């Protein structure tokens, strides 16, 4: 059993961390409190505040790093202030400041690191850099109580199947090209549907109205998957549908009427991509021999994905864990939580020269000191 309280300061009865997240288009600030001792059903992390603001792009556009970074710069102080007020804490009660070190987009990451460094100097507090994916995993575990799950991490920038082994979160399978969220977003752009509240959400709503399954490529390679071919394929179908290319018999009847709708395309895309995800997750479960699955990341909110995963897991007599949008969409609280675990193990912050960010930062690079 790992001892989490070797560095508990005298006179303190708990630890508090503030976390700043801004690796993509969401800016999140969260404040968390841990009490000494291992986590259990009676000793849970306490969420004191968890707020977020999302940079929304015009329809048909992806988010530009420059505008996203500007969004983060211009909102971060307001969010931090609001977060402190919500928590009801005095600054002096905070133990450390945690920020997303990576992976993510350079400019938005940088703007948040600068905010974190500034706060650290203003308040004279240690700084902890956190791997974004580890943040998702640890927060998911804490919220759901999943003890040793296979983790499916699905978001705009990531698609990984992860399992813990020997103090690392090891990547069992991942995308060989684009991430699932990116694939859905890009198809949303092809369809020119709104980016609000999120492109993936809008695809999900359209898919609910679809019913006809159109066969798409299905590309699982071992435990890895590939999605760019599927995207290209369905983009072409959408193009032919919009431009009335009646020679395409997959989508047009002989009399020239369309066989399929945009909703059917969304439905088929989801069915195919999610079947691949569930399949790889099941393979990882069988391989590791665990009965638990935890879904984290923005795409994890998708109800169809959750239902498919649940069906698979129940067939294996297992347990599925998922969090709601407060925790599965990028947020500051997860950065605070994972950063605080790191802080409790080391008792100090990062050297100032290490308080930088990096666009590429693999999940399995982090030594998980707080688990056996």
């Amino acid at each position, binding site marked *: 059993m790992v001892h989490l309280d070797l560095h508990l300061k005298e006179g303190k009865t708990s630890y508090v961390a503030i976390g700043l997240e801004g690796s993509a288009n969401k800016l999140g600030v969260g404040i968390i409190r841990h009490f000494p001792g291992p986590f259990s059903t009676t000793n849970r992390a306490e969420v004191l505040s968890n707020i977020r603001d999302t*940079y929304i792009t*015009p329809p048909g556009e992806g988010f530009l790093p420059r505008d996203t970074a500007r969004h983060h*710069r211009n909102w971060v*102080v*307001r969010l931090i202030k609001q977060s402190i007020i919500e928590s009801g804490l005095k600054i002096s009660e905070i133990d450390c400041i945690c920020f997303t070190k990576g992976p993510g987009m350079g400019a938005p990451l940088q703007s948040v690191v600068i905010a974190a460094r500034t706060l650290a100097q203003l308040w004279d507090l240690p700084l902890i850099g956190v791997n974004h994916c580890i943040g998702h995993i640890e927060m998911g575990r804490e919220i759901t109580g999943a003890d040793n799950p296979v983790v499916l991490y699905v978001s705009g920038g990531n698609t990984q199947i992860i399992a813990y082994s020997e103090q690392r979160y090891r990547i069992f399978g991942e995308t060989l090209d684009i991430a699932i969220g990116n694939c859905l977003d890009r198809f949303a752009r092809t369809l020119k549907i709104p980016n609000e509240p999120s492109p993936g959400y809008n695809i999900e709503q359209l898919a609910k109205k679809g019913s006809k399954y159109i066969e798409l490529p299905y590309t699982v390679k071992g435990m890895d998957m590939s999605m760019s071919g599927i995207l290209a394929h369905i983009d072409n179908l959408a193009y032919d549908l919009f431009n009335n290319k009646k020679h395409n018999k997959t989508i047009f009847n002989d009399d020239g009427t369309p066989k399929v709708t945009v909703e059917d395309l969304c439905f088929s895309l989801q069915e195919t991509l999610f079947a691949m995800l569930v399949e790889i997750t099941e393979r990882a479960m069988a391989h590791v021999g665990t009965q638990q699955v935890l879904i984290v990341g923005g795409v994890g909110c998708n109800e169809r994905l959750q239902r498919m995963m649940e069906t698979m897991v129940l067939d294996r007599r297992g347990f599925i864990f998922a969090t709601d949008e407060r925790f599965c969409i990028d947020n500051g609280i997860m950065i605070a939580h994972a950063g605080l675990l790191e802080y409790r193990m080391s008792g100090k912050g990062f050297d100032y020269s290490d308080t930088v960010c990096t666009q590429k930062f693999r999940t399995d690079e982090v030594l998980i000191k707080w688990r056996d």
Partner: protein
Amino acid sequence: MPSATYSSPSDTQTFQTSHLQKSQLTTQGKTSGPSEFVKVDRDQPSEPADNYYGDLRCKLTYLQDELNTLLTDKMQAEKKSKDMEEAEKKLLDGDDGDDDE
């Protein structure tokens, strides 16, 4: 009083903020606005507070603008001189059509 210094082997420039009038202080930077893709700007910076920090914010915005402008100009000049050099080379050596790009 904040200031910024740019230095390289060939050039050193310092930017001051002491000359700034109250009316010149703003959080709306010339070089930190939205891109042309943004139609509705929801992400304007907030107005500066009437205190030391508000003052500091505005001055930093000013310094950032100055530095951004300087760096952009330098990059453009560099590109231009490189283009000129290449054009000159072409003129003197003839175009061998062996373009790597």
